[in-house]
């Protein structure tokens, strides 16, 4: 089962690396001076090359090698990454992806053309004078006889499959090495972990190679080791000087080589940056200035050990946990009806375990939405170029977590929405200028938690929806009668009508009227909803409201007549008793909760419950966002871990239930759809208001 196709493993790994590479390249377009970004792009390229060669993707390896060579000059700071260069680099990235995913359909000529472009850019603006950093990166080789290295690996490095001896062998290929193992870290035999690495190495490399060449040897393990490197002078250095340290917190290659004690007077010092000039004897430990916060996060994530798990196994695990939760509910019910104390204790213990197991399993399925947002940056970049509409793309709430299945389902709808926003929403530069707006349009993609829901919004600062045109189109298509009285909101709903498009011309991107209806259907299939709001001349905001999870929720079990129902606990605000006064006001369906009027629904009426109502009716106050609504039930039974089972197609016309679950006694119970109930109560409430006002 675990024997996966190695090529498949490479493909998976490569697709993650492509994301890193693409992100870094796009970021580089924004801040071309960020060396960290260049390094991360370079690392991704290097890994693709290395693993590609390892898994027999020779074409990938050779192409990437060329790419890397060209890009190396950017890394050395010799040329600036311009927008054009980044566009070519992105094309090169796409070509490598194609080479990996579908080698048959790729054409060598395209690859060569891309490489030519790349080389042209890279060689075109060769600076007249070398940039100041360049000599620092590779200290004058003539003056040195080699390098002195001190290698200290993390003790668990062997478990990750890295072999320090192989690395040393690679090092030897650079030139004659004098390797001395340092054995003082070896513990007593009985304390020794056979899988740990206790040895350290002191290496003198007698070759005039660059520091980069040495870094390349250790590229794959640099997070798991400490490398101390100092140039070997003709006169032996007294002690190794920690020039730069590679550690978990700051795995950054220091940019400067600092001299050993004897070399103080040598030229590199004179060129070194001020802080090392000031006190060269204090073993200058050079760190880069703090990178932007976002990058820092990325670094920390890399430190955390992760395991690749097949998605199906997670789904299976979730199913098993669902079954366990149902079985546990039965046990709890059985224990509660008996009088055996020890059984009750065990039941409680299992309930606790099942609930934490459920949380852990759900947590394992949660993915930050940022992984999805990253993909759209390329989309915006390309669209804005193709349509010559400069667009600023801003994302927020990348760390908002959603169930992985939902993230996958969200990709297509968001592509549609972003395309629409750029193609229809953002006006062209001339129109923007005429309306006194800045040249650059702005698309905001945001995700935020709101109660039991996650709101994903796509907001543009374009021209807004043209209500009159939508209306005209709807009349033309015979969807409404001419002159019918409709609110703007109702008119906007036609956008979700299949085959509806107001675009004057059909562009390559949109205008065929396929899309918004698909978006709506996809979102509704996820038990979410979609809102449109627009302000003429200022832009449009599309809000997707999505449930947090599709699998298990905490629920409140209630009884209405004979039937039992589940209300998602996250929507419940409070429970109050329906007072006799509220009870009397039959005609007026709202109650007074600490001075606020809250409309309520009698579930008994809604569910057509038989039998006499309970003497003391309870009201459960639920809310979605700002709106609060009361639900009147006969009895509140208590908490219930609810495994959501969807209702079949035969019940797809029933809107007040979002699903069903199985109770401890094996019967099915229905889950109330909070959003639907709230809008139902609201509309009743408003009608009543209108009636009263009339």
């Amino acid at each position, binding site marked *: 089962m675990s024997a996966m196709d190695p090529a498949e493993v490479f493909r998976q790994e490569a697709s993650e690396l492509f994301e890193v590479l693409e992100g870094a390249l796009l970021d580089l377009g924004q801040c071309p001076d960020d060396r960290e970004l260049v390094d991360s792009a370079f690392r991704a390229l290097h890994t693709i090359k290395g693993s590609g060669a390892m898994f027999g993707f020779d074409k990938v390896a050779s192409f990437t090698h060329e790419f890397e060579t060209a890009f190396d000059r950017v890394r050395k700071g010799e040329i600036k990454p311009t927008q054009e260069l980044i566009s070519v680099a992105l094309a090169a990235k796409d070509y490598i992806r194609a080479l990996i995913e579908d080698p048959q359909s790729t054409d060598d000529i395209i690859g060569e053309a891309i490489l030519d472009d790349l080389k042209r850019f890279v060689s075109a603006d060769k600076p007249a004078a070398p940039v100041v950093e360049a000599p620092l990166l590779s200290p004058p080789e003539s003056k040195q006889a080699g390098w002195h290295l001190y290698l200290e690996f993390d003790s668990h490095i062997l478990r990750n499959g890295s072999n320090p001896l192989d690395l040393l062998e690679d090092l030897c290929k650079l030139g004659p090495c004098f390797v001395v193992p340092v054995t003082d870290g070896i513990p007593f035999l009985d304390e020794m972990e056979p899988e740990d690495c206790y040895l350290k190495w002191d290496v003198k490399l007698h070759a005039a190679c660059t520091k980069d060449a040495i870094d390349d040897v250790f590229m794959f393990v640099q997070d798991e080791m400490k490398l101390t490197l100092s140039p070997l002078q003709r006169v032996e250095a007294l002690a190794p000087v920690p020039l730069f340290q590679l550690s978990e917190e700051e795995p950054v290659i220091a940019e400067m080589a600092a001299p050993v004690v004897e070399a103080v007077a040598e030229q590199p010092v004179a060129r070194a940056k001020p802080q090392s000039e000031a006190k060269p004897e204090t073993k200058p430990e050079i760190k880069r200035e703090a990178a932007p916060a976002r990058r820092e996060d990325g670094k920390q994530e890399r430190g955390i050990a992760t395991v690749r798990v097949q998605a199906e196994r997670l789904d299976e695990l979730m199913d098993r946990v669902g*079954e366990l939760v*149902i079985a546990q509910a039965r046990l709890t019910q059985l224990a509660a009806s008996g009088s055996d104390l020890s059984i009750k204790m065990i039941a409680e213990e299992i309930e606790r375990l099942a609930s934490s197991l459920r949380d852990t399993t759900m947590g394992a399925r949660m993915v930050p939405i940022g992984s999805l947002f990253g993909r759209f940056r390329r989309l915006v970049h390309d669209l804005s170029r193709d349509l010559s509409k400069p667009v600023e793309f801003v994302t927020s709430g990348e760390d908002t977590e959603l169930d992985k299945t939902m993230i996958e389902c969200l990709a297509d709808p968001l592509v549609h929405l972003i395309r629409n926003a750029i193609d229809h929403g953002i006006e062209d530069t001339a129109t923007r200028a005429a309306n006194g707006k800045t040249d650059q349009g702005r698309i905001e993609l945001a995700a935020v938690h709101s109660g039991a829901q996650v709101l994903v919004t796509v907001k543009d600062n374009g021209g807004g929806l043209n209500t009159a045109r939508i209306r005209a189109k709807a009349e033309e298509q015979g969807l409404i009668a001419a002159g019918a009285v409709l609110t703007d909101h109702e008119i906007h709903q036609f956008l979700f009508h299949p085959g509806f498009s107001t675009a004057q011309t059909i562009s390559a991107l949109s205008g065929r009227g396929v899309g918004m209806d698909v978006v709506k259907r996809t979102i509704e299939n996820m038990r979410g909803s979609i809102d449109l709001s627009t302000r003429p001349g200022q832009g449009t905001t599309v809000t997707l409201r999505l449930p947090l999870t599709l699998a298990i929720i905490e629920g409140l079990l209630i009884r209405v007549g004979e*039937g039992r129902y589940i209300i998602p606990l996250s929507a419940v605000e409070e429970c109050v008793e329906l007072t006799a006064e509220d009870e009397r006001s039959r005609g007026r369906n709202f109650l007074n909760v600490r001075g606020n009027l809250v409309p309520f629904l009698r579930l008994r009426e*809604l*569910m*057509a419950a038989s039998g006499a109502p309970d003497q003391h009716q309870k009201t459960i106050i639920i809310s979605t966002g700002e709106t609060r609504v009361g639900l009147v039930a006969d009895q509140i039974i208590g908490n219930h871990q609810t495994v959501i*089972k969807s*209702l*079949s*197609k*035969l*019940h797809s*016309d*029933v*809107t*007040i*239930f979002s699903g*069903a*679950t*199985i109770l401890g*006694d*094996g*019967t*099915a*119970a*229905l889950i109330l759809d909070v959003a639907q109930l709230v809008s139902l109560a609201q509309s009743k409430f408003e009608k009543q208001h209108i009636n009263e006002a009339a």
Partner: protein
Amino acid sequence: MNGGLAGEQQSSAMQVVMIGLGEEKFALDAGLVREIIDPVPVTQVAGARAFVPSVINVRGNVIPLADLRIRFGMPQLDNSADTRIVVIEIEIDNEPVLVGVTADKVYEVTEISQADVQQTPRVGMHWKPEFIRFIAKWREEFVIVPNMERILN
């Protein structure tokens, strides 16, 4: 229920599960039937269409329980010792859906041959003709082979 056998003999004979609804006998294509279970507690679904008034739990799945008697305008009898739920799998919008069907009695699994098939009479029937695939003869009795996809859509 041997699916392979049923398939081979499709041309000449058809394996069916014979169930009783009120006074009538219906023959359900055995290929559709997944299992036959004793009655279980049902959960009413408010606002659902009359012929699928409730859901039941079958081995951890919540499935709709259809009442063909309502579709055919028959009186609903209370559950008796003979009442069973026949779980069938049908396609709705190209997706397989499990549906429970209440039967007042389940007789047997049997074969009806194509030779016994009668054309659905256009007149003299108080049922919608599209609900019926055909009418067959079985032991000198007429039995209805219902079109479950149509009935449940």
